[in-house]
């Protein structure tokens, strides 16, 4: 039997869950890019 509260909870879990995953992945992406930038600067420094 469908429980409306359960369906409501599941919708809430769905949007909150996907948002949290994307935020976590975005943070990880940011860390990767930051590190890549840092490595590029280090490389340019050693070239000079």
């Amino acid at each position, binding site marked *: 039997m469908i429980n409306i509260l359960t369906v409501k909870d599941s919708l809430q879990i769905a949007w909150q869950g996907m948002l949290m995953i994307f935020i976590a*992945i975005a943070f990880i992406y940011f860390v990767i890019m930051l590190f890549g930038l840092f490595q590029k600067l280090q490389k340019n420094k050693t070239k000079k």
Partner: protein
Amino acid sequence: MDFFDLLLQSFREFTWKDAVMILIGCLLIFLAINRKMEPSLLLPMGFGAILVNLPLSGVLNQSFHGTEVTGALDWLFNVGIEAAEIFPLLLFIGIGAMIDFGPLLSNPRLIFFGAAAQVGIFLTIIIASLIGFDIKEAASIGIIGAADGPTSILVANVLNVRPGIFAAISVAAYSYMALVPMIQPFAIKLVTTKKERMIRMDYNPRWVSKTAKIIFPIAVTLVAGLIAPQSLALVGFLMFGNLIRECGVLNSLSDTASTSLVNLITLLLGITIAVSMKSEQFLTLDTLYILGLGLAAFVLDTIGGVLFAKGINLFTKKKINPMVGAAGISAFPMSARVVQKMGLEADPENHLLMHAVAANVSGQIASVIAGGVILSILL
């Protein structure tokens, strides 16, 4: 007890449901050996199903005239899964030691496909709740879409679902992982045209230093732990295994983790899960629903990843082959191979493997984060 009572006691307790479960066990063994479907898990699960469905089985806890006798499989289940989910977590150390995040680090934008391809988990949670499962059961069923056996087992156990549901989730998770080469092409062709499947992508990887590969697992652990603390067990053990691999000073531990540890835990995990495959718990309508919902989760994950890629293509000049989005599920490396194969079928000179591998390993990260996020929300 007289002699004939002693001889016939098991036969008296044997029901048609036990017979059906033993046949299911034999079917899992057949699929493992003959069809080579995830043999490392399906064979132990199949044999375990036979062991636990024989009446008065000595592998389960029994009570004889007031005397409690501990069964070996019940003990393994209590210690290895129920207490702190240690079996799946130890398995994650081994899995982490096998993953190379290099392709992802050299092409970081593909990390978002791992996130997108988890959408099937949450859509399945909604569908399961519409069917009538309570929220924790719906979440445990949805996590089949993580395409990751240990994550599914851990989440289902932490959420304390009924044993019959737990068994069905485990069987579904591992069976559908083995069926990825059949499920994904069907789902991809539903939402792409041949022209889209022919899109070529240049492969110009950035150089990735050893230091980056060492810092990456630490950074992921910190980020995931701060955003979803309940994911720390899953993410932490996975990244610990990866750190052992990448540090370069623990080669013997890395080899042990990726071979002996994985083999040992897989051996025990499969047969232990079978404790929840008792006939009275497994042979229910809910099992059929779960098998159907698990399949839906995989299909929706694939479609979600593909549609995300198509959405990105609306805003970018350099097009992404939408099939790479499908590789964002955690079924590594099967999903990447499926995408590579379909790319070559559409265009024999279109090699998508490295892009697909990058999306695939990002799916590994995203799926464990998804498991932790679900636990964070529900606990």
